[in-house]
């Protein structure tokens, strides 16, 4: 790779990664930036981008990589999408593209409006936007939780 890369990137496994790419474009507006396809037309590797972040979409390429669709819907990681705008409109678009809405948009005690959905292969995606600025004291009062920030 020519450019310097530092940071975190999720690589998400699908049984049908090409269908996943089409879904992620339609539902969330991700853009395909890199794709490699072998002689049989199978996807070998791909990357999508959203707001300057990268996500890799791949297949079940080893016995240790599986889609939740192959694991009765269980997943051990979820990806969060932070958007600048209208969470409800985003949710409507995802639903129209075939996402199953697990939690409708709702304001959270920490100042975000959030919804959660599941894609056709049962990966869970959480989408949120900041709607108000909430102090830590106010978060504690609203939630009953003790909030530690920057604790060692």
């Amino acid at each position, binding site marked *: *790779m*020519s*450019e310097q890369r530092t940071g975190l990137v999720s690589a998400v496994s699908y049984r049908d990664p090409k269908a996943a790419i089409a879904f992620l474009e339609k539902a969330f507006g991700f*853009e*395909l*930036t*890199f*794709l*490699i*396809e*072998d*002689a*049989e*037309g199978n996807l*070998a*590797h791909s990357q999508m981008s959203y707001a300057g972040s990268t996500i890799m979409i791949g297949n079940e390429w080893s016995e240790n990589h599986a889609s939740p669709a192959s694991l009765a819907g269980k997943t051990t990681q979820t990806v969060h999408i932070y958007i600048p705008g209208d969470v409800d409109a985003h949710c409507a678009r995802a639903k129209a593209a075939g996402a199953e809405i697990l939690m409708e948009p709702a304001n959270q005690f920490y100042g975000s409006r959030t919804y959660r959905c599941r894609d056709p292969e049962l990966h869970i995606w959480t989408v949120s936007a900041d709607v108000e600025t909430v102090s830590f004291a106010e978060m504690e009062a609203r939630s009953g939780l003790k909030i530690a920030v920057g604790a060692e």
Partner: protein
Amino acid sequence: MSSKILVALRIAAPPETVFDAFTDDIALWWRPNSLFSFTPRSPGVMAFEDGRLVERLPTGKVFEVGRVRAWERGARLVFGWRQAAFTPEMDTEVEVRFEAVEEGTRVTVEHRGWDSVPAPHVARHGFPDHLFLQRHGEWWRTLLAGLAGRANSIQLGTAGERDA
């Protein structure tokens, strides 16, 4: 045609500007890669001329990379892509799409047909298929970054002229 590489990038300039930068200014933004040389005498200077993409070699010879198969300014460009070592039945093709988006242009390069070049062929440097395509794709990323730089400077120049 299968066995393909796809690379896409957003460039902050209109599709016509990016198309013109791709075709007219290819000598300015092209970045040769010694792993994927067209000929043993490469690199030379790239140019679109007489309906072909060519490399003008330091020896004075002109190597035809491929003929232009579609030329739709601001929308789509398709050309053949051969290395000197390819046999007649080996052929790859590059399709470049220029799509207007909010901030400018989304440029997508699809380079396909690598299945016509067998794995043992010298062009592949002994790389397994996926690794070869990955490396070649990374080169296309470098190339598109060069194109973006060129299109941006044209765009800035045009903006400067408008302000004057």
